[in-house]
């Protein structure tokens, strides 16, 4: 049988096989260390951030009951939602930028799916052992040893998932109070539900679905290739150097035997978390975790061949050219990112920390008071977005002789509070007929430049 047929056959078989579990083999090396570092840093951040405090309150809290988002010193309101959307857009362009530059860095090192899977695989290794031990254990009949190993894995996984769910909820309600509530078995139904929901999702995604999420469910994995070009960093097998592959003793002179550098040890396949063979070229299943680079480098070292048979490279470099980092694509993504970021910073720096809402009383069009006075009722909402108390002048304009009743000359609003104020606007009957446009305005007492104007209507009798 020819070499090609030999390698093709098992692949054709795999198409008809039902889901087969992948047992990624553990590997040490430069990229494994990097990935470990990324996992520690990112998971560490996720679990630690809710516990950070900022002036007596949680530093980062999406306080749903109060409908306020605390981001360090900043308090965002639902009205500031645009900033959050803006941040997400910036995140998307950052992703595009780095994809064009260095391929699937995100997938290999930063995606929550990868990071949590990595943590779950660690727990699997602690309890069930190395790859070959795990495979043997799965094949073995149930025994006390198997039960103990599988049981402790499940215990670790479930405990970790529950803690993850708890932390997740801690981003939406004060985490310290939540901890106290849980210890007192006094948790609200929905709180418990979301904690378990997120915990279960973590357990299923990182424990069982793993690479299937990347292969079948992730939109980014499908469209990331659109950001690729010949100068994008990819993980690639150097076919020219490696082929013809074949096993050999270390002492064998490979040139004499007509062999390439690949000794066909299969280590790169065994370490792959998505179970592909990098030597078949760039495949969309590849999440660029670089485990195969570490694996191959370790073998190259043993064989005393130069490293880099599998390495980070670009299509251009592979074809003997040079890689261009500065290319139009990078300027487009980078430029858009810069514009978005400048706009965000400008907008946040110049935003007026007050919001004014005027709601006309819908129940009555207008009221006639003694002395030929026409009255309209409104509810005024003044939202003080700053953290300090502030006083405002409230004024109305647009109709001759219009005065306000119900509002003091100065209204004080505590920091981060919404003041709801029922007010009545009045004018003489001679000045009011039909629908007239008026404007309400609030001006900060301490700073004339802080002015917000809001349009409304004043209704009078139609003659």
């Amino acid at each position, binding site marked *: 049988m020819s070499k090609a047929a030999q390698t093709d056959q098992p692949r054709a*078989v795999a198409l008809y096989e039902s889901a087969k579990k992948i047992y990624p083999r553990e590997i040490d090396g430069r990229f494994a260390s990097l990935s470990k570092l990324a996992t520690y840093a990112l998971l560490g951040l996720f679990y630690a951030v809710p516990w950070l405090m900022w002036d007596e309150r949680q530093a980062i809290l999406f306080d749903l009951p109060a409908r306020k988002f605390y981001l360090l010193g900043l308090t965002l309101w639902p009205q500031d939602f645009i900033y959050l959307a803006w941040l997400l857009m910036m995140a998307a362009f950052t992703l595009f930028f780095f994809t064009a530059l260095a391929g699937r860095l995100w997938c290999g090192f930063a995606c929550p799916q990868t990071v949590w899977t990595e943590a779950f695989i660690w727990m699997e290794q602690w309890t069930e052992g190395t790859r070959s031990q795990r495979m043997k254990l799965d094949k073995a009949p149930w025994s006390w040893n198997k039960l103990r190993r599988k049981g402790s894995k499940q215990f670790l996984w479930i405990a970790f998932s529950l803690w993850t769910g708890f932390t997740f909820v801690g981003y939406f309600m004060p985490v310290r109070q939540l901890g106290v509530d849980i210890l007192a078995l006094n948790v609200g139904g929905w709180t418990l539900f979301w904690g378990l929901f997120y915990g279960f999702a973590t357990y299923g995604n990182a424990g069982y679905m793993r690479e299937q999420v990347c292969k079948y469910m992730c939109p980014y994995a499908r469209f990331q290739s659109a950001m690729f070009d010949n100068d994008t960093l990819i993980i690639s097998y150097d076919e020219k150097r490696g082929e013809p592959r074949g096993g050999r003793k270390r002492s064998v002179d490979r040139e004499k035997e007509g062999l390439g550098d690949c000794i066909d040890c299969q280590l790169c396949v065994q370490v792959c978390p998505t179970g592909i063979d990098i030597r078949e070229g760039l495949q969309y299943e590849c999440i660029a975790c670089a485990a195969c680079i570490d694996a191959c480098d370790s073998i190259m070292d043993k064989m005393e061949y130069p490293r880099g048979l599998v390495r980070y490279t670009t299509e251009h470099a592979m074809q003997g050219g040079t890689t261009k980092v500065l290319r139009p694509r990078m300027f487009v993504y980078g430029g858009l990112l810069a514009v978005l970021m400048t706009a965000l910073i400008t907008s946040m720096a110049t935003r007026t920390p007050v919001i004014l809402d005027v709601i006309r009383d819908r129940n009555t069009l207008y009221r006639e008071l003694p002395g030929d006075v026409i009255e309209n009722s409104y509810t005024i909402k003044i939202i003080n977005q700053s953290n300090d108390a502030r006083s405002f002048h409230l004024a109305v304009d647009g109709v001759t002789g219009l005065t306000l009743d119900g509002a003091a000359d100065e209204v004080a609003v505590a920091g981060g509070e919404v003041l709801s104020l029922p007010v009545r606007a009045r004018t003489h009957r001679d000045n009011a007929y039909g629908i007239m446009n008026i404007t309400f305005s609030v001006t900060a007492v301490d700073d004339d430049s802080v002015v917000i104007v809001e349009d409304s209507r004043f209704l009078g009798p139609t003659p």
Partner: protein
Amino acid sequence: MVNEEYRGARKWSRNKQAVATVVWISFLAAAVATMLFFAVFDPTELMATFDADIGIGQQGGYAIGFFFFWMICAGCSAITAWLVRTAPKRDANNR
């Protein structure tokens, strides 16, 4: 020696792929819809406006809103996926 255990990786059946994709993508869409919707509307105020105090509270409002969006999005995704998959094969003479 080719290690057959690892060639080709495991593969989900088409149905499993379809269900997982529909559920996951509609989940993402529902999350976005929920954020947009509740950035504008407060569940407590909504219930007050429509005089519909159904005793679910604010948190219940958020949750029901989210699952409502998820259901709508999943339904839409599922029908799309089903229509695409069951579309008639292209006419041989007119390809």
